[in-house]
């Protein structure tokens, strides 16, 4: 994968896009989890969210590099 992508001729780091994608993914996951009430099995909700976000972002980052 290229490390920088040109969007409208501005070079944007691919990592930034990965960040955006993982933010959107974690929002979607958050919505899904709270709608099926999965969060009642989670001890520390915000830590859980943060951790899953980090996992997603790192995974995408590893795919790029």
């Amino acid at each position, binding site marked *: 994968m290229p490390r920088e992508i040109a969007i409208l001729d501005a070079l944007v780091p691919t990592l930034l896009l990965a960040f955006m994608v993982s933010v959107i993914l974690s929002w979607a996951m*958050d919505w899904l989890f*709270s709608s099926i009430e999965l969060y009642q099995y989670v001890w520390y*909700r*915000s*830590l859980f*969210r*943060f951790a899953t976000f980090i996992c997603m972002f790192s995974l995408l980052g590893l795919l790029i590099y």
Partner: protein
Amino acid sequence: MNLGQFRVSRTLSILKLAQRDWLREDAPTMIYIIKVLIACLIAMWVSLRFELDQPRTAMMTVAIVMQSRTGMVFAKSYYRLVGSIIGIIVSFVLVAMFAQERVLFLASMAIWIGLCTAGSMMFRNHQSYAFVLAGYTICIVGLPATIYPELTFSIGVTRISEIIIGLISASLISDLIFPQRIGEVMTAKIRRRFSDFLDMLHVMSIDNIGNTSSQSAALRIVSDVFELETFRASSGLENDASRTYRLRLSMLNAEFMAVSTSFHTLEQLLRRQNVTGHPEIVKALFNLYQLLKNVIDFDNRSVRDEIEARQLADELKYFRASLQEKIDLIRKDLPNNLVGNEQLDFEVGVELFKRFVDEFYVYTSTYASLGSKAAIASKDSIAEHPPQLGIHFDSLAVTLAGIRGALSLIAMACIWIFADWRSGVEAITIGIITSTLFASSPNPRKTVNQFIIGALLGSLLLYICNFQMLPQAHGFLMLSLAVTPAIVIAAWLTTRPAYATIGSGVFIIFLMHIGFNSAYNANPITFMNDVIADFLAIATSGILYALIDLTTSQWSRVRISKKLRELVVLACIQDLPQHPSILETRARDLVQRLNGGHRVASSQDKEMVDWLLSTLEIGRAVIELRDQVTEVGDNETKIRIAECLDQIAKLYTSPSIQNQMAAIESINLAATALDNVMVFSRLPQFIHHRLLTMLHFIRCALLDKDSVLSLHNQSKELKKESANAS
């Protein structure tokens, strides 16, 4: 138990008490300070790591958005981001257009700042903050960009990166470390408000009617309503149970406004009756009220939580069902020799009481439903959306605020240009922060004074940090140690409501001039110049706040009372259907802007509250009257009542004793017309009854000698006479 053991247990219990106090009072403050510190340091570390120009921008962002409640941090971060992006775009445009022409550049910037200040006056809370930041961002991006126009884009991108770093670290820290959920605070607030309200109902009795204590309660209610609305809006961004019942909360807010107005109307009526009415009627009405008091009494105390509120709601339901019988009983006991008007006095009281009980029941049951899990699980089944708390403002005041913001920029720019002064950029930046940030505060002059104290303290800390500690700091750890004391002090100050502005002053001044960017670059001469520039700028905006005083002056009060009267006029002439809660929110919003949630300070504040209550009283009565009139088929009655409404509108457009008399006269005419046998036979009985009571109610309110309207008219008359005499 021997003496030694006793002593030990006593000491232990004292320690336990102390520990509980500490956990309740000090621990949250400590946690908050630690959170601010960690977020600041993370922001600083990340910015340094990414080799951004100004780690201080990231730190400043943290300081700005950090709040003790997680949801508030999210909300503020969101608006900070929006405001900054808009500000950066505008500064790109301005630089592209006027990079070579500083006068034009500064002039267009002044216009932008004016717009932003006006915007921050128009909106509430976080939205208002977005405007402040849109103005402030143009300084931190646009001004450096004029000096190096070729770097504009990269400056803009770097600033926004720093801001985002600050926002992310603030949000993460406040969400991960001991998050303080808004839902809990909100529940506590709602609970307290409910019990406060019950206490207020409890206190009212025949002996102390007409005291002014209820006015401060009324003012507190006004600010409570808006505070809760802010919480409610912020809780949407927070992810916990409170999100599921947001709609219910706005419902509760609207109902609370309605019921508190009804209560004050009832109170006013009882006060008037107590002064002028027939003693038997006063006694009868208070007996009626006593019945309600018995219902809300829970073993001689008020209701504590939602479960008890559920019981209370059930009891109120029974009470409502049997109310008519009780009223009939009391009516029977009334002496026979009452004249028509006195009879009407009683009927008006009964009508109001019924309305109050109805609204109180609705409010109580909504409140009780917050507590039950079943109601929350069923999500919001409320079909009807509660009316939104819209935005209502005095357009002249907003315009003047905009002009004030623009003027302070122009003043600083003139000094910069004519004195050829190197710290002009600093002066403009601080000038803009102070002139936009405090525009919506209830007493900007006082706020600026506090800010100056904060700036002094900040400069002192800055000097110590920049020239004593930073030169000796090596590595990130030492750097963190050097900046920690100032951040802790500022964060601690912001937790104290009385010193919050001082704290923000320390934060802003300290972080603006902190002596490192990517490397150490403090210089005593620049430092002194910048500090002088800061004080000059703060003083300038302080002077401008004093010159164009929109909140504390008599002028603004007169304007607000006029606006309130216009609301009554609108209620008289605007097309139906009108919702009383729209009137409520408008009137309350106007007064809240003036007061900003502070306690009743002066007699003028009291006057404002009187105007508010009288507006709500008459406005609601007028709307109800008009609603009834639409049901009437009879033309003569319609014409009579339209005449009344015209007169009331006239009275509220230009209040004077003549107009007051004319309005009362027209109401009298309408009432006699209604009494006519011919009319009586043409109308359904309950409509006839309601029309008559509404008219009588308005008449009583207008006749009241102690009402704010009458006092206003009298003082006007006196002024006219003395002018004629001289």
